[in-house]
């Protein structure tokens, strides 16, 4: 499988009726990369993720995992290829215990797959995400930020090669965001995992990732290092243009320029 990207999207397009949510996006992801995806509200980030994980069948374009065509396959085939994801609003199995939620991935996509000792069993994954104390609690009973960690744990239990994180830091306190970022770095470094991370809070993201993809109105308008991307005229325009009618959640372009690459 050498020479092939871990995951590659070619001209990926998703249409909802007349709306083009993802517009001919091409991108390839190599092993061990830590990539951020940013873009203003409605830029198509989550739809792009849904297409990358098989949850949304693309209207046109192709998807390849290590050279193997996956376009149109059911989501469990993506999971079997080592593509795992989290959802923006945590979708844990509410009635099951935290431990059983982790076990779920181990029983299906993660079953029989070679794994690092960090992902050896439920206990080791719970340790990794720091939820050992909550193991026997129902997933519905843990705090929202713990549910986010659990989502990551569930995805890790599939013993993936690539992890898609959809706004895992949203709504977390600064300290929690920092811990989350550290966890993500650690996953990448120790598990040699490719991580693609969507975040609405651009400054946070730019601090931790090595490559940034910017989506705007469904199109890929920039793909490069954080330093390159924040100087990209198109990107600045996308965010400044957005600022006129959006609330100040979307100021990031300014902040990003003030502190280009903190990482």
């Amino acid at each position: 499988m050498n020479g092939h990207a871990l995951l590659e999207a070619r001209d990926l397009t998703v249409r909802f009726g007349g709306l083009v949510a993802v517009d001919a996006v091409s991108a390839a992801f190599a092993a061990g990369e830590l990539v951020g995806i940013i873009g203003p509200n409605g830029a198509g980030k989550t739809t792009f993720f849904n297409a990358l994980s098989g949850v949304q069948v693309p209207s046109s374009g192709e998807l390849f995992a290590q050279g193997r065509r996956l376009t149109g396959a059911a989501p469990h085939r993506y999971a079997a290829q080592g593509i795992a994801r989290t959802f923006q609003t945590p979708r844990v199995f509410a009635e099951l215990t935290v431990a059983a939620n982790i076990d779920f991935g181990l029983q299906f996509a993660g079953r029989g797959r070679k794994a690092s000792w960090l992902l050896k069993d439920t206990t080791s994954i719970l340790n990794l995400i720091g939820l050992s104390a909550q193991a026997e609690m129902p997933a519905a009973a843990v705090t929202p930020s713990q549910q986010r960690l659990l989502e990551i744990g569930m995805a890790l239990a599939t013993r993936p090669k690539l992890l898609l994180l959809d706004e895992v830091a949203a709504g977390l306190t600064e300290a929690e965001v920092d811990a989350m970022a550290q966890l993500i770095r650690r996953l990448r470094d120790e598990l040699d995992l490719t991580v693609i991370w969507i975040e609405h809070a651009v400054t946070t993201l730019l601090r931790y990732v090595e490559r940034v993809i910017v989506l705007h109105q469904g199109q890929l308008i920039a793909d490069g290092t954080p330093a390159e991307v924040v100087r990209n005229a198109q990107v600045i325009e996308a965010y400044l243009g957005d600022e006129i009618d959006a609330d100040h959640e979307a100021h990031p372009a300014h902040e990003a320029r003030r502190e280009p690459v903190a990482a």
Partner: protein
Amino acid sequence: MLLNKKLLGRDLLVLFALVGWALALPLYGSEFAVSMLLTCLMYVALSSSWGLFCGSTRYLSLATAAFFGIGAYTSALMLEHLPWLVVIALGALVAAAVALVMGAAVLHLRGTYFAVLTFGMTELIRHAVTTFEKMVTGTVGRVLMVVPDRNTIYLTVLGIATLAVLTSILVRRSRFGLAMAGIGSDEQRAQTLGVNTKLVKMGGFALTAAFAGAVGAAMATRWTYIDPATVFNPFIGFQTVLIALIGGAATLWGPLLAAVVFSLLAETLRLQVPQAYMVGLGVLLILSVLYLPGGLASLRWSTFGQWRDDTRAWWKALREPGPKEGAT
């Protein structure tokens, strides 16, 4: 493996004891008691196997009557040519095969759409059989000439019911059961964690249908005369669903518990006051949905305390109108 192995021994022991008791009943019980237990066993088999798939995945199927009827007709057609147990197995197989076809068409739908379509297909099958009988064989119903004796039927239905509960006990602790629970909780999430949901749903639906088909094949011989209106009676499907819901569809013992309550109600009330039977069913369902959404199996001593507290709070609120009274 972290699959739930807890209490496996207890569940098997309870099943063992119940089967022992049911085996002994014909030796000392009256004919009426045995007949009542047979109805009870029929509903245990139907609702336990229904709960096995529909309870855990939350796909509410109303097609039980279709599979039951298919089993019954298989039995009517084959009883004279094949040994008894082969007929039962064939009833199960044909029903499962029909379930696979039906499932391929409707299992991608959820909620009301799935329920309504399974009901519609049941009616379609009933009318198709009726038409076929009228056009081709020129009859309305069929009389089953060579039927096994009462004891054989009783033991067979007992065997099917036992197998249904045993399957439930084992499946709940298997990967298959975990996959179905995941589908019931969040189907897409289960898919992204590697569950081939289509395969699991088809398998579960066919398994449920096989039990209904087997029960239909056995019960047809007890009725000795069958016609589409009786064996494809949608009420069989509704009653199965009601029993499972009242007992607790996602639980192991709930459907069994409710099936006992039902058959007692059915046999004691239906003959004397048929309206009261239907009213009783309705009231039970409403009460269980309102006050015991987890079903009879979720009833605990603490539930009574909760009801008492709720009633007190309600009573208090009734006597002391809240401050918002003047609003609007």
